């Protein structure tokens, strides 16, 4: 037996399992099922597999409600990533992943390994990753610690994504003090494949071999999964051992070799799975469970970077850049040779069995022997939910912005970190490697062409968590709607969703209610849009010292554009083009950027959202782009009409002259379901004909430096150069300020 490990009795008496996240009831259940005391290793593997991060035991009852089937879905939730049919025997694969806790502890490596992990999810399905996106939340940019986290996270995403050669093409970043002690780092990856290359993570076929591929196992991130499933206390420094270091160079070798193996040896590869949370343990046991089989592993064969590693450490290590392959018995050598010729470890570490047992051997001893099904099915927990008290107290009245000095208000608004251009940050990401990026960061959705076809994929991540704070269900609906508006602005049709559900502790009934409501809201709009939720990630316990973050369900959406030459961009194209507002502007100020800016907080009943209006507006934009009527299209979100107009102007380096038949404050209203478009004089008649009263003409695109905005109450003059400079540079100024 390995030294220094507690005996089964000591495990029971010291209750070390509590430290690992197992409850007394769960421990008792294990004893009952095994009809004996679990030993140290067994207790460890149950704690890993039954952590929320791996088992979703707390969120599953809610996640089950997700709608995830339609005519395109080839693979829904349950595998490494979801897959959608995009015609021509091709498929798009995507998923999101969170690395919130690691990124707080260790911003660079936390974010870097987040990118590495989500990419493995994609290529383990047999797909070539083609793009990465990110969704980030930080505290306010007014203190050194937050800046340190921002710098580290951005550098980490860049460090991994750039090196492995997958472009980071889009994302979103916002700042709010609720994230100061609990930043959010969600990454999404998108891959492309031929449908016949599809792989699943299953361990089928008695006697087939389990092959370990990639980096050696070290002591990094031991039991990171249970670490991700616990709340932070800011005084607790001991959690810091759970840091993993990434090696994008090695992952590139693993990725290329894995895809080559799938191309060349699909007849002998039975299953592939990456090692993510709970490492070798969860990948191997889940593969066995999905196939209804058992597994025998010989841990002495596991390639090890460090000496003296125990079975517990080997199983729960979250060392990066590792994969598990199941290969037909007798055919292993071809796979081993392929990986070894790329200078990678590839070792047979075990076999598939038919006895349904998860059995680990170490130094000629059986160190764990438990039923696979039991191990991989944590006892469900139905948690109580209750409407958060704050919701009942919000007033119905919409916030009334102070319009004392409109011009000043616009300039101050443009400098808000949530509004200002994020280019000072995303310029660190290689957004163009692979040479397929048709729309780079800085527009609405990103657009990636599919070589040798006319098609392109649009992609975006979105959520305005302030809206969810005011109304979880409505806010979640708006998040899906906004993501879709971003996709539609490029001319692409939304086809599917991945999500990253970032919430506080589910043990708090109010948080659990928020989660439930958010999922319902996402579902409602997803069905209307025919965009099934095919994958996602849950990150709970995003609390520091009892303070939960805003409910932040990141929506990652992918769209399909059948003819890339019809792609439409944010930027105004030509002076003389007509500018239109599509959609109606209402009193939508509670939860808005201007409310936050002028009052320092978010308050009141969230303004309304009508999904029929939304769908109609989107359909109109799609029709107009399909007929090539638009020279630019940009959806409106945070900051409202004035911000949307200015963004199109900045992107095209052109000014505009407009008259808005509304009072000043409506320049800042965040009414959803709206777009700003520009239309050339030749297309004007056709456009107005099909638009009817859906679009309101505002004015024209101009070339000089002067921007003129006339409302029913003011004449506002802005300088393109000056305003653009504020918009472009504000984040850099804040980052560099003392």
């Amino acid at each position, binding site marked *: 037996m390995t030294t220094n490990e507690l005996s089964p009795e000591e495990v029971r008496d010291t209750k070390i399992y509590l430290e690992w996240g197992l409850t007394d009831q769960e421990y008792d259940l294990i004893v009952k099922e095994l009809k004996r005391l679990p030993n140290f290793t067994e207790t460890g593997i149950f704690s890993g597999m039954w952590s929320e991060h791996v088992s979703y035991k707390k969120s599953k009852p809610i996640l089950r409600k997700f709608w995830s089937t339609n005519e395109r879905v080839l693979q829904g939730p349950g595998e490494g990533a979801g897959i959608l049919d995009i015609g021509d025997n091709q498929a798009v694969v995507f998923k999101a992943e969170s690395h919130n806790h690691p990124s707080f*502890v*260790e911003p*660079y*490596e936390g974010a870097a390994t987040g990118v590495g992990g989500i990419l493995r999810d994609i290529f383990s399905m047999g797909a070539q990753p083609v793009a990465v996106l990110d969704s980030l939340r930080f505290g306010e940019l007014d203190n050194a610690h937050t800046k340190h986290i921002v710098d580290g996270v951005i550098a980490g995403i860049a460090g991994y994504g750039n090196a492995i050669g997958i472009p980071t093409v889009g994302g979103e970043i916002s700042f709010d003090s609720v994230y100061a002690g609990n930043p959010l780092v969600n990454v999404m990856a998108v891959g492309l494949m031929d449908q016949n290359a599809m792989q699943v993570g299953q361990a089928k076929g008695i006697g087939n071999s389990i092959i370990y591929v990639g*980096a050696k196992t*070290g*002591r*990094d991130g031991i039991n990171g999964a249970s670490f991700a499933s616990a709340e932070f206390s800011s005084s607790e420094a001991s959690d*810091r*051992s759970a*840091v993993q*270091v990434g*090696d994008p*160079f*090695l992952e590139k070798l693993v990725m290329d070799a894995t895809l080559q193996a799938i191309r060349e040896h699909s007849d002998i590869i039975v299953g592939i799975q990456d090692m993510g949370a709970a490492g070798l343990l969860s990948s191997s046991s889940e593969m066995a469970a999905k196939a209804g089989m058992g597994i025998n592993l010989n841990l002495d064969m596991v390639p090890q*970077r*460090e000496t003296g590693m125990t079975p517990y450490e080997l199983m729960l290590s979250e*060392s*990066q850049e590792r994969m598990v392959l199941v290969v037909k018995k007798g055919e292993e050598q071809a796979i081993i040779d392929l990986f070894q010729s790329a*200078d990678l470890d590839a070792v047979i570490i075990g076999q598939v069995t038919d006895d349904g047992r998860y059995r680990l051997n170490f130094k000629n001893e059986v160190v764990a022997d438990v039923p696979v099904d039991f191990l991989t099915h944590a006892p469900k927990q139905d948690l109580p939910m209750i409407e958060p008290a704050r919701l009942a107290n919000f007033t119905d009245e919409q916030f009334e912005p102070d319009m004392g000095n409109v011009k000043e208000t616009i300039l101050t608004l443009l400098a808000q970190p949530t509004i200002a251009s994020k280019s000072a940050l995303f310029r660190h990401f290689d957004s163009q490697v692979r040479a397929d990026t048709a729309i780079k960061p800085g527009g609405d959705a990103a657009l990636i062409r599919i070589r040798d076809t006319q098609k392109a994929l649009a992609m975006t991540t979105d959520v305005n968590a302030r809206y969810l704070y005011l109304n979880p269900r409505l806010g979640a609906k708006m998040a899906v709607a906004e993501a879709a508006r971003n996709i539609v602005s490029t001319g692409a049709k939304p086809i599917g969703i991945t999500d990253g559900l970032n919430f506080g502790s589910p043990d708090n009934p109010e948080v659990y209610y928020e989660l439930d409501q958010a999922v319902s809201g996402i579902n409602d709009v997803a069905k209307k849009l025919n965009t099934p939720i095919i994958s996602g990630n849950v990150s709970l316990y995003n609390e520091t010292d009892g303070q939960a973050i805003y409910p932040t369900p990141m929506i990652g959406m992918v769209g399909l554009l059948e003819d890339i030459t019809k792609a439409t961009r944010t930027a105004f194209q030509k002076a003389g083009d007509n500018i239109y507002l599509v959609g109606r502007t209402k009193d939508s100020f509670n939860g808005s950027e201007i409310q936050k800016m002028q009052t320092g907080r978010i308050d009141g009943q969230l303004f309304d959202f009508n999904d029929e209006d939304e769908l109609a507006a989107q359909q109109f934009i799609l029709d107009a782009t399909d007929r090539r009527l638009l020279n630019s299209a940009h959806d409106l979100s945070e900051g409202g009409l004035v911000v949307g107009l200015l963004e199109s102007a900045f992107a095209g380096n052109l000014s505009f002259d407009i008259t808005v038949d509304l009072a000043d404050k409506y320049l800042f209203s965040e009414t959803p379901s709206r777009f700003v478009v520009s239309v050339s004089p030749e297309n004007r008649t056709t456009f107005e004909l099909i638009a009817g009263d859906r679009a309101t003409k505002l004015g024209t695109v101009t070339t000089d430096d002067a921007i003129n905005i006339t409302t029913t109450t003011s004449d506002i003059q802005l300088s393109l150069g000056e305003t653009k400079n504020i918009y472009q540079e504000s984040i850099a100024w804040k980052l560099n300020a003392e």
Partner: protein
Amino acid sequence: MYLAKIYVTYKPSILDPQGEVIKAALKRMDYSGIEKVSQGKYFEIKLNAIDVDAATSEVESLTDALLINQNTETYRYDLSLVDEDEVVL
């Protein structure tokens, strides 16, 4: 003026991909006797302080705060009194 020479290395359990790549390259280049390579960082900092105690605590404090990542790295340092215009190498 004091000169601190600070040597930062990874903790033993932390993956050092650079060291591995360099070792493999040296092997390819026929340096056959190489057993292990690790790469760290080396800082030279010139600072003013009233005495060696002040300099010591300044160096330790700034190294902990900025130069190293306490999760993954460890360090040692030498401190010496130098002339104002001595060239740092």
